[in-house]
């Protein structure tokens, strides 16, 4: 018994302490509770993993029966296997670094204790999601992280744009959750259980022809859920808006952990997906489409956080591409490396924003290289990692994915390569715009405090060296070996694409700064299209949001609620009054009428007597 429950419960305790008492605690105490709970949780993960050894089989712990109703039995069961071990390390480790960073970043903000309470609550839910060994408990964590995302995106709740962004995130997530729920229902109907072990076991035994129809349906519905949570087409629209939240939130939730929950879930359900090739193909196509589309949008954005947000969407697309072509281990590997460099990118962006006193527009930045050198150095590490330059972490994981894609269908490889070039381009565009050239804004930048740059440094080290963690080899036990043979030329091509992207960005933003604007003007329509995110939000608003609101207002509210239901309720009252009005006429006030009634009653009684007494 490794007491796995401690891992999520420790941050939960932090949530309660900070949430209930935080208003009266000094900042140092809040920091200690919040960061400490995550640190102890991380330590416990390490202790557990070292105690469990090689984890060839899963280690499961069952605490109590949560639901027992008819044929449905759900227990509060947690389990650790290699997949969850990887996720646990990422979540608690990077979570801790981000908590520490946040103590510096948020030090001037109001609602300090509330922020850390929500952050801890998020850790609790995310860890529950990862440790769960049945779908329903995972869904609890799934919903919970969505809730915390809402709370944290809307942290500056007085700002209208922030609260609407929070609503958007939650509602779009909900649509995904609807798909997930349907998948759960179908799963229960077909498999009779929601436990991972039982479901995967039963799925493994299904012959291929039998499974095709409904198993594909289950997998597609699971993918809908994953698309909502992990911001894939068409449910990605919430993630860029989620940048309204504080930067540590963007780093933790919308880069490293929550958005990867979808990837984790699909990887966990590999046994199901492997039996539904159609679903896997869909996953791969959705991932690829998302990767490309988001990369193109990221080319033209001006807000530094938005660039990185679209980058996240694009990288998540890569992960789903990996899952879709069967390279589950590579997908998870990319989750890990992405967590390193994307968190670093966001935290670094936060450092830049903090240095400039809140400025987020790239057009207002410039020449920061010498003013905030630590931030520059660490961000540069992240950029080379994400661009796929060997021997840094991004190269290893992205390469594995591209090679697996090539093995599955070569055209996917080529699309992936083009996207990699775009990725390198837009990341370095942001770096060059921010750190090179002449200062364009009117700021007085200052470097961040140690509480902020120490985590940056740690993440930089991980981004550079993380490729050697051999995550996919570790996960081979679960998912099968990766492709051993690949022509070196493919690797060279992908690296060259990344380098080309960097070179082009160098050209356009450092050597000839006016080139970018002139290209933008000559490609006017295209540029506008991309800059406005293909007007997807506007399309959604017109096609989905406005009709829904109209239906709600006219049909459901005016007609049903006010008309039918209120009418019925009021009608009861009016009817009662009407009947009363009629009955009232019997009160004639005439005593003799009452006397007549008495006699009528007497006659009636006599009649009863006469009828009943016949036996006498």
């Amino acid at each position, binding site marked *: 018994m490794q007491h796995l429950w401690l891992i999520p419960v420790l941050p939960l305790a932090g949530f309660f302490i900070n949430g209930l008492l935080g208003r009266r605690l000094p900042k140092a105490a809040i920091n200690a509770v919040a960061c400490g709970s995550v640190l102890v949780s991380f330590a416990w993960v390490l202790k557990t993993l070292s105690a469990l050894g090689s984890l060839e089989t899963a280690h499961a712990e069952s605490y109590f029966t949560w639901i027992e109703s008819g044929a449905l039995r759900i227990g509060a069961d947690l389990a650790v296997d290699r997949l969850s071990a990887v996720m646990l390390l990422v979540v608690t480790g990077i979570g801790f670094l981000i908590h520490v960073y946040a103590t510096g970043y948020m030090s001037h903000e109001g609602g300090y204790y509330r922020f850390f309470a929500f952050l801890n609550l998020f850790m609790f839910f995310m860890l529950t999601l990862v440790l769960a060994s049945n779908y329903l408990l995972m869904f609890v964590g799934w919903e919970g992280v969505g809730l915390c995302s809402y709370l944290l995106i809307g942290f500056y709740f007085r700002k209208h744009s922030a609260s609407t962004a929070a609503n958007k995130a939650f509602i779009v997530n909900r649509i995904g959750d609807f798909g997930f729920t349907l998948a759960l229902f179908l799963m229960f109907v077909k498999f009779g259980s929601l436990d991972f072990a039982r479901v995967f076991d039963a799925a493994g035994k299904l012959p291929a022809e039998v499974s095709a129809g409904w198993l594909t349906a289950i997998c597609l519905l699971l993918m809908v859920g994953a698309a909502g949570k992990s911001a894939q087409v068409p449910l990605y629209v919430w993630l860029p808006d989620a940048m309204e939240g504080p930067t540590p939130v963007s780093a933790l939730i919308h880069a490293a952990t929550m958005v990867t929950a979808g990837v984790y879930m699909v990887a966990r359900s590999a046994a199901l997906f492997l039996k539904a090739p159609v679903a896997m193909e869909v996953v791969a196509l959705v991932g690829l489409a998302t990767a490309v589309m988001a990369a193109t949008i990221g080319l033209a954005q001006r807000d530094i956080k938005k660039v990185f947000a679209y980058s996240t969407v694009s990288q998540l697309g890569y992960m789903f591409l990996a899952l879709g072509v069967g390279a589950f281990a590579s997908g998870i590997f990319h989750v890990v490396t992405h967590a390193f460099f994307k968190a670093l990118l966001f935290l670094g962006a936060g450092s830049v924003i903090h240095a400039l006193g809140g400025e987020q527009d790239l057009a207002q930045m410039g020449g920061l290289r010498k003013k905030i050198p630590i931030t520059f150095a660490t961000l540069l590490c992240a950029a080379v990692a994400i661009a796929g330059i060997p021997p840094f972490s991004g190269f290893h994981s992205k390469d594995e994915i591209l090679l697996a894609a090539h093995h599955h269908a070569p055209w996917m490889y080529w699309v992936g390569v083009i996207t990699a070039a775009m990725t390198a381009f837009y990341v370095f565009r942001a770096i060059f715009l921010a750190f090179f050239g002449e200062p364009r804004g009117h700021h007085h930048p200052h470097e961040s405090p140690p509480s902020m740059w120490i985590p940056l440094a740690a993440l930089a080290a991980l981004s550079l060296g993380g490729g050697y963690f051999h995550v996919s080899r570790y996960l081979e036990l679960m998912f099968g070996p990766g492709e051993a043979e690949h022509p070196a030329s493919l690797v060279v091509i992908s690296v060259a694409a990344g380098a080309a992207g960097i070179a082009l960005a160098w050209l356009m933003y450092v050597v000839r700064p006016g080139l970018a604007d002139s290209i933008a003007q000559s490609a006017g329509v295209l540029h506008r299209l991309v800059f406005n995110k293909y007007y997807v939000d506007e399309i959604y608003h017109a096609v989905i949001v406005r009709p829904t609101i109209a239906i709600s207002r006219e049909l459901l509210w005016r007609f049903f609620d006010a008309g039918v239901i209120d009418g019925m309720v009021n009608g009861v009252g009016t009817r009662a009054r009407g009947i009363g009005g009629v009955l009232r006429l019997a009160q*004639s006030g*005439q*005593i*003799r*009428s009452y*006397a*007549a*009634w008495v*006699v*009528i009653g*007497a*006659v009636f009684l*006599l*009649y009863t*007597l*006469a009828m009943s*007494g016949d036996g*006498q």
Partner: protein
Amino acid sequence: MDAGLFFLFAAIALVCGINVVVQTHPIKSALSLVGVMGALAVLYLLLGAEFIAAVQVVVYAGAIMVLFVFVIMLLNADGETRVSRARLANWLGIPLLITLLGMISYLIQREIPYSPRVVFGAFGRGGPRDVGRLLFTEYLLPFEVTSVLILIAILGAVVLARKEIE
């Protein structure tokens, strides 16, 4: 002889009863009612209810009817006006009456095979001794309760009938 007495006093009772209902001036109705009560007292005697007959004359005819007459004289009550407004009573009154009478008659005639003949003196336990014994043993509780009832009635009458204190 019993039969003759019966017919005579039954006739008196009937005529006086009709008079009660028919007369316009209340005082005439009151006096007719006294007549009814007197006739009934004789009929009680025929049925062997001596105590009751005496009480009827003393209490009912002698006290209650006197009270009625007092009040009629006090109020200077008149005959009735022509206007009648109780529609239910006016319309349903006669049918109801006929129905009532009919039903009671039916019930009674069902009894006919079982009813004995009334012989004066056949029932000897209607005297004060027998009534008193029953009253103070088996029906003691109701007896006491009625005494409380009379007390309440006295209080009520006094309170209701006095003039308001200025």
